[in-house]
């Protein structure tokens, strides 16, 4: 029998029981929908992490205060005050293979210019920071070592912050007032903008907008804004990628020595290279994805069992039809094919609807929750293939049951 004819028969049989067909498909629809959504979320997050890592700069290593390796994975919340400028100086003096070093302190503040005000992230760093993080100038200049020495009230502004304050107008030369924060009674300090950065962009759906920033000399930040002597972290750029492990070892030895950490005691700092960060970030992603993927597989299985159940009912209901077809010359395998195609049609239609549902859900998550999602053609193909397999797998037993019927018994079936 021609394949096309078998498809037509299967479609007709399904159309006769539309409601039942739709209910049967629900399991597959939700299974595939969940699958597409989780994979989209995972892929979106992965791409975002890659972009973030890429915008970070080249051959970058970060040192945080506190030992994050022991406390599980967490970023940017170093509360221990183990890192100081002395560490930075020691690294400059003693570690081989380092091209640039910059301390980093950071805070988030309200900044005001003219009638506009915006909340932005403020980073205190040394001039090398721009090179390490691959920042380029759109206008003006970076601050200098001189500015660091004098704790000058100068700032380099990021594209987003500039847009928020000056709405596309010239930022360089303008004065912005940075609020002192709650604890110091709400005063503010004027900073002169001496440079504007090119946008890094690439942060659609990202956790943070890197261009929404104000970068000032670390001395100014520590003395005038934060009144602290401890650093949030140290940024390093190695000469090549190959020396990174060697630099890592040197850093550990040096910092353990300067921090007077003896023998078996753990580090009070954490060193991360760029690719370590990437792996750490994507491994959290992966755990999440496996979990959600598991949910998707379970619902697909449930969907498959639903299909099997309905196909078994269908075979029983249509025993007489099967008998007639066999009496007229249908071979067992024609009957098998007919019911298998029916099951696969059910699961595929469910799969296609599920893919639609998953893509819709991903879109909504991006729109409403601002989570990055990416629905790749591969994900769609795999989901579709999977629903075909579910149909074949769960449709086979009922189809075989139909094919093994004896024609005369099937004809006599009431």
């Amino acid at each position, binding site marked *: 029998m021609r394949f096309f004819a078998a498809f037509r028969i299967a479609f007709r049989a399904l159309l006769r029981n539309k409601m039942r067909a739709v209910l049967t498909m629900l399991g597959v629809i939700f299974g595939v929908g969940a699958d597409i959504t989780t994979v989209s979320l995972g892929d979106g997050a992965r791409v975002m992490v890659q972009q973030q890592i890429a915008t970070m700069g080249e051959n970058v290593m970060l040192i945080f205060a506190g030992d994050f390796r022991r406390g599980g994975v967490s970023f940017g919340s170093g509360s221990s005050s183990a890192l100081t400028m002395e560490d930075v100086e020691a690294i400059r003096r003693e570690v081989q293979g380092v091209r640039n070093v910059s301390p980093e302190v950071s805070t988030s503040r309200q900044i005001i210019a003219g009638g506009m005000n915006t909340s932005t992230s403020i980073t205190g760093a040394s001039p090398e920071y721009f090179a390490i993080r691959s920042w380029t100038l759109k206008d003006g200049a970076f601050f200098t070592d001189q500015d660091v020495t004098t704790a000058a009230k100068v700032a380099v502004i990021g594209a987003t912050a500039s847009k928020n304050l000056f709405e596309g107008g010239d930022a360089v030369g303008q004065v912005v007032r940075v609020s002192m924060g709650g604890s110091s009674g709400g005063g503010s300090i004027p900073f002169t903008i001496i440079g504007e950065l090119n946008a890094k962009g690439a942060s659609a759906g990202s956790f943070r907008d890197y261009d929404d920033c104000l970068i000032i000399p670390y001395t100014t930040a520590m003395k005038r804004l934060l009144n602290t002597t401890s650093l949030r972290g140290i940024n390093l750029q190695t000469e090549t990628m190959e020396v990174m492990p060697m630099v890592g070892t040197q850093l550990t030895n040096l910092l353990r020595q300067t921090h007077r950490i003896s023998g078996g005691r753990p580090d009070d700092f954490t060193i991360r290279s760029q690719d370590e960060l990437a792996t750490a970030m994507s491994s959290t992603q992966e755990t999440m994805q496996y979990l959600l993927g598991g949910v998707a597989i379970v619902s697909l299985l449930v969907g498959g069992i639903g299909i099997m159940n309905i196909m078994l009912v269908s075979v029983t209901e249509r025993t007489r039809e099967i008998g007639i077809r066999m*009496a007229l*010359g249908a071979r067992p395998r024609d009957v098998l094919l007919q019911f298998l195609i029916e099951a696969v049609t059910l699961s595929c239609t469910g799969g296609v609807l599920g893919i639609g549902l998953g893509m819709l859900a991903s879109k909504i998550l991006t729109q409403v929750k601002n989570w990055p999602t990416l629905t790749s053609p591969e994900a769609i193909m795999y989901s579709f293939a999977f629903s075909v397999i579910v149909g074949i797998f769960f449709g086979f037993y009922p189809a075989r049951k139909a094919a093994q019927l004896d024609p005369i018994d099937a004809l006599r079936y009431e």
Partner: protein
Amino acid sequence: MSQSTNSTAGEPVIRLKDVHKTYFTGELDVKAVQGVTIDIHKGEFVALMGASGSGKSTMMNILGCLDRVTKGDYLLDGIDVSELDRDELADIRNEKIGFVFQGFNLLARTSALENVELPMLYSRHKTYDDREEKATKALELVGLGNRLDHTPNRLSGGQQQRVAIARALVNDPALILADEPTGNLDSKTSIEIMGVFQKLNEQGITIVMVTHELDIAQYTKRNIVMRDGRVVTDKLVTNRLMAEEELQKLKVASEAIQMIPS
């Protein structure tokens, strides 16, 4: 040399040798057919008769390769059917036999045309590019050219029976087996159907049909009567009726009735 004698003498299309069929039901075994031996040759037109329960349908199911014998041999075109597997039996049913069931057995919610197309759908050795055309012709032959897209529930019993007949002959089978094909028809339509069978028979198709009606049996060439699963009478029809003449007579008679002044 035996080839030539066979072709002249005619190898029987159907050869039954001491065929038995017993239904093994729970308590009581029903011996529906008990030792039937008959030959039916190509071009024969046989009426199988007998009281209800005498085993006619059972015989037809065996002849149609739907059911297997309990004991004895059934040779179809010289082939021992008991040695064939399910696929080969399916192919024989599809290509060699057209079966008209006692209960029609049409597919519900499927148009007359598609019901008739079914056997062609499963044809393996012939491919039909003109399924619809052939099905339409078959339905026209049984007088249903104007009911092609009607589903069985929108057809009368007689019309359903004629769809079943169209379906049986659409594949150009060598053997037509019909279980009471005129059971639900009025006498005029019955004669028309017998006319169709006679025409097919003249083309060389072997026909075996079950009937209760003696006058319908007169349109065939040979009558076999069964009782309690055995053949009790097997005789050639002497005063054979021809459907065309009988229909002509009916027409004249009805015209005569109309001419009687009321």
